[in-house]
């Protein structure tokens, strides 16, 4: 996936000012930045929920006929075709009309279904439910399970959709500590285990979780890219002070991960 020179504005207010980004397959990329830096906006632009003012977004769209791996411009794809190559997981999902968890995950197969549900679709759904440890919830109502479980169900729906790119908008923001780790582990596992090329782009607030589970970090500052690269290079004390206006110390753990300790605002 590659993004070139992306601009977006709400009326007069410019939110994205020329974002460049490229994601390789089997890579987890986190977007960090303060509130209003444009994290969610960037993700919504990629999924064409919002229409960018300028710039190109290209993605590998392997058509069913050939194994062609050329990059396609997302604006040339219709919504159904787009939903086969990328899947967006919203920050939180509220529902007025609840469904069984199985049926929610089955909606991920929707871009592939015309009317009848095939046996393949069903087994794909139950496979996904098992993979995310949700098989006990398969026939519970979506509004009668906990927030963490609900988040996993929505991720399961995205997995069942079988896209090349996952877009997560703050997948951990409503969750407790253990659920945060479970969800991130699950995303990481999903990307690494996959035989087909898959990658994930995650908008997130927690620096340490981002550093622990992503291959690369995109640091957004006021609508433009401040730094893009592996956590060790991006998360320096200087960058954090500039972008988040907080004092911090960055250390390397024994396992080789970055750990950021935040002290006080500057």
């Amino acid at each position, binding site marked *: 996936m590659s993004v070139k020179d992306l601009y977006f504005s709400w009326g007069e207010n410019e939110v994205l000012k020329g974002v460049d980004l490229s994601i390789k397959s089997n890579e987890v990329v986190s977007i960090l930045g303060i509130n209003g830096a444009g994290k969610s906006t960037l993700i919504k632009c990629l*999924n064409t*929920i919002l229409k960018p003012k300028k710039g190109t977004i290209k993605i590998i769209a392997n058509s069913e006929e050939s194994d062609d791996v050329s990059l396609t411009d997302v604006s040339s794809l219709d919504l159904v075709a787009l939903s086969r190559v990328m899947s967006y997981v919203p920050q939180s*999902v509220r529902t007025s009309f609840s*469904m069984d968890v199985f049926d929610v995950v089955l909606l991920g197969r929707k871009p592939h279904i015309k009317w009848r549900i095939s046996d393949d679709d*069903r087994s794909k*759904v*139950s496979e996904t439910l098992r993979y995310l440890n949700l098989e006990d919830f398969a*026939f519970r109502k979506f509004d009668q399970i906990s927030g963490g479980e609900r988040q996993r169900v929505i991720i399961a729906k995205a997995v069942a959709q079988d896209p090349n790119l996952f877009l997560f908008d703050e997948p951990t923001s409503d969750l407790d500590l253990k659920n945060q780790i479970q969800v991130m582990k699950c995303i990481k596992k999903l990307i690494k285990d996959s035989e087909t090329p898959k990658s994930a782009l995650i908008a997130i607030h927690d620096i340490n979780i981002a550093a622990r589970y992503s291959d690369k970090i995109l640091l957004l500052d006021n609508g433009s890219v401040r730094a893009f690269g592996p956590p060790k290079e991006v998360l320096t004390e200087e960058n954090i002070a500039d972008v988040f206006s907080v004092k911090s110390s960055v250390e390397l753990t024994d396992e080789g991960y970055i750990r950021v300790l935040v002290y006080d605002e500057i």
Partner: protein
Amino acid sequence: MDSISVKHIEKGKFQVIVILILAILTFLSSVFALGLGSSSNLDMLTVWEIVFYDIYLVLTNLDVVLRNLEYNLLPCIGIGTEECINRSLVYGIEFKGTTIQRSIIYDWRLPRIFTAIIGGIALAVAGALMQGCLGNPLVSPLTLGVASGAALGAALAIVLGFTILSVPELAIVANAFIFSLIVVAIIIQLGKISSISAESYILVGIAITFICGAVVSAMQYFASDAQLSQLAHWSFGSLSRPNMDNIILMALVLIALLPTAIRWSWDLNALSMAGDEFAISTGVNPNKLRKNILVVSALMTSIVIAFTGLIGFVGLAAPHMSRLIVGNDFRKLIPCSGIFGAFLMIFADTLGRTLFAPIVIPVGVMLSIIGGPFFLYLLLKRGA
């Protein structure tokens, strides 16, 4: 095949069977309703005898029916005066029963039951569609202001004598229909605004309701007693007005619109589950879908309401009752709501015309009186 998939298939089959049972029940209750009435010279068995013997006669005399049809299709014979043969299709078949008996069954009860079935299906399906595409369980076919438009049209015809169609017996109907079409046109215009949300549609609907309501109230203020009573009668909602020609028209509109609605089932599943962003990520364009669905359901509502007057409750309750049975899968919810709507209408109407016979309580009133408490009970039971 793994156990979860098998369970899902079984659950689906069970729901289909429940829908079929409900359909059979609805059919039986309409047969029962046909036999039920306050006439002293016509009991239930006689009705069934006449009706089933008629069906038998027509089926065994199909050649006669075809010959009559052939006569009707012949060009007019132009000798002296223009003379056309216009025969009833069953001309020449000897039927049972007295003229009065046959008139009660075929001119009075049968049109009512057909109207109940068609109206019930149309209003309930429109309700299910609107609730789904606006993501709001409080919505009914009357929310968007289609019905208020119809009421305004009817009031203009009754009070001011302003009619669009000059045929007297269709004047009120045509006015009601055309004014509700104006509301549909407003909905279409709204749909062209790219950023319009579900809430905006509802708010605009409420605004339209208030505006039309105010104009109707103003007219009521100046209306004579006779006009007031006619207007009140119109707004009660009754199944006795449409004749067979009207019913065929309603049925044709319904048959034309239903398949379109059912085709959007999967898209509606995604949209009603979790709103616009979720729908987009599943490959559905929420604005386009919402506009299309609203136009289709508003058309369904307006054609029925123009003939029957205001019947609101079935469009709110039938979809919710169906959701308790089949969940929120629109592939099953649409047919199930339709059948439930027809059932509710037949039940309420039959009760309304037999309970205090010979006084007939309008179906709209009856539906709310018996349906309301039942609906409350279902909701409270589920909430507990």
